[in-house]
């Protein structure tokens, strides 16, 4: 076993062991905290498809996180108020079914990523960062000023949405749902990185000229990567909204985009399990440092500076060494 796969097992194992211990010790708050880490990890793994594999520095992934959140919020709110989402041309009601909500969240964010990616990817570098930020901010202000779904106050859902055969209000059961989804996502992204598409995408990140010389246009590779990336982050948004039973425009804010990026950078850009470690560390810091001081972000900032200046590969770079070839 390589050091990287040993670290993968350790990270995924710790993320499972902590809530299981908390369950045995009857510490529901710790289970909720772990669930947050798992959901953030999914969002980070999603961003990493664009940022790590494709080299696309998206500063607007809050857009997809928020869309997933609002997909849950809107569908569940209509279900709990017994109203229809649309009456014309189709009569569509709300739903309290998690799988259905996930499907809507994933499809909506994938379509948004396809459309906004098609526009944003005409630019590169700093302009790409700015245009993705701008699209997310557009949705942030739109959500604030749209009174139908709560505007600035957001939407509250009284009862967590349902999953067949499980009691989702039980923290450990909801954790299990999220953990299984993380496992599926991270395994799928691992396969993606070692696939034909992954090989060409990662080559484009290193050298676009090389990819053109072998006959591929980087644009289409980036667009697919961005779409997959947005879809995964959208799923995380739906799970996050369900965890809190609440959605608000904050999910669309640039701080959210920044936090998702922090998970990736802390963990190790381009390492499939990196964002999982990054999100877990982030939650740990938030909990431990947040207990010490309201201004814990100062310490987080100092740590990020340290990572960017001295440990480019993040946690994975430090502990697992240089990236091995996939497959």
């Amino acid at each position, binding site marked *: 076993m390589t050091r990287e796969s040993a670290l993968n097992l350790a990270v995924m194992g710790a993320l499972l062991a902590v809530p299981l211990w908390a369950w045995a010790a009857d510490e529901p708050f710790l289970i909720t905290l772990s669930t947050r880490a798992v959901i953030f990890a999914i969002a980070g793994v999603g961003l990493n498809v664009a940022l790590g594999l494709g080299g696309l520095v998206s500063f607007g992934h809050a857009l997809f996180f928020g869309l997933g959140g609002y997909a849950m919020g809107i569908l569940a709110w209509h279900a709990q108020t017994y109203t229809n989402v649309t009456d014309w041309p189709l009569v569509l009601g709300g739903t309290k079914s998690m799988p259905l909500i996930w499907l809507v969240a994933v499809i909506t964010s994938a379509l948004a990523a396809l459309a906004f990616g098609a526009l944003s990817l005409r630019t590169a570098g700093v302009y790409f960062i700015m245009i993705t930020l701008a699209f997310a901010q557009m949705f942030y202000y739109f959500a604030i000023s749209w009174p139908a779904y709560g505007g600035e106050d957001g939407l509250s859902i009284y009862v967590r949405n349902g999953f067949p055969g499980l009691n989702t209000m039980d923290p450990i059961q909801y954790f299990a749902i999220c953990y299984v989804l993380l496992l599926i996502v991270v395994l799928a992204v691992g396969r993606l990185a070692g696939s*034909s598409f992954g090989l060409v995408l990662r*080559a484009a990140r290193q050298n676009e*000229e090389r990819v053109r*010389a072998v006959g591929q246009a980087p644009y289409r590779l980036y667009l697919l990567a961005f779409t997959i990336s947005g879809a995964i982050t959208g799923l995380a948004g739906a799970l996050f909204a369900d965890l809190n039973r609440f959605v608000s425009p904050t999910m669309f804010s640039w701080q959210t985009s920044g936090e998702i990026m922090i998970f990736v950078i802390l963990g190790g850009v381009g390492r499939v399990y990196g964002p999982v470690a990054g999100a877990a560390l982030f939650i740990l810091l938030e909990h431990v440092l947040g207990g010490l001081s309201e201004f814990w972000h100062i310490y987080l900032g100092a740590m990020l500076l340290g990572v960017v200046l001295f440990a480019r590969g993040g946690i994975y770079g430090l502990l697992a060494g240089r*990236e091995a070839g996939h*497959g």
Partner: protein
Amino acid sequence: MAEPILDIRGLTKHFGGLCASRDITLDLRPGEIHALIGPNGAGKSTLVKQIAGALVPDSGTVHFRGQDVTRLSTAARARMGMGRTFQISSLAMEYTVLQNAVLGALCHRGTVWRLFDRVMRDKGLLAVAEEALEQVGLAEFRAVRTAELSHGQRRQLEVAVALTLRPQVFLMDEPMAGLGAEGSRRLIEFLSGLRATAPILLIEHDMDAVFSLADRVSVLVYGEIIATGPVADIRANATVRAAYLGEENAP
């Protein structure tokens, strides 16, 4: 005489007041090595970029396999069978030697949209990649990261990746640069045999290589082709000698 595979007619490119290509007409026929020589700053790289599709000419056309490709992208021309090696190595530096070669083989096969296969275990691709590495003498370096190769080895890898594309023509921009005497000799031998597979447009500074390999030579000076012909004619050409070769190099 056989139809040219690559046919460049009246290519002109200006950068502001500078004329980098002036009415260049050049062709490449099946089975030949056509060398393009010229002093530094003559516009060789600008010409290669226009042929490969990285630069659009102001006027003139590039025909490839009988089709006007002047407006096609680099990627489209590569798919039609233009195998290019770069003057300054352009490879995926974090990849291993083998991964770079598999990348070429994969793009040639055209199955880049497979999302969940294991590309580095694909026997068909590995066979093509390893054969190409074998041909240029890099087989033993297959597991080495490209960034750790010497400059000469990177040139060899460029050639290997071009081979995996099974191209109709090779555009080679100074493939000998950075190779030692032994490496050059081996590559000359290899390229000499390669012309039977596909013709080569060879941009090269190494005159020994040019004169031992080329069937025809074109001389580019200040963006203009001042002479084209068989090696013997070029060696004997007074204008060329004055402009480029220098009298002391004359036989």
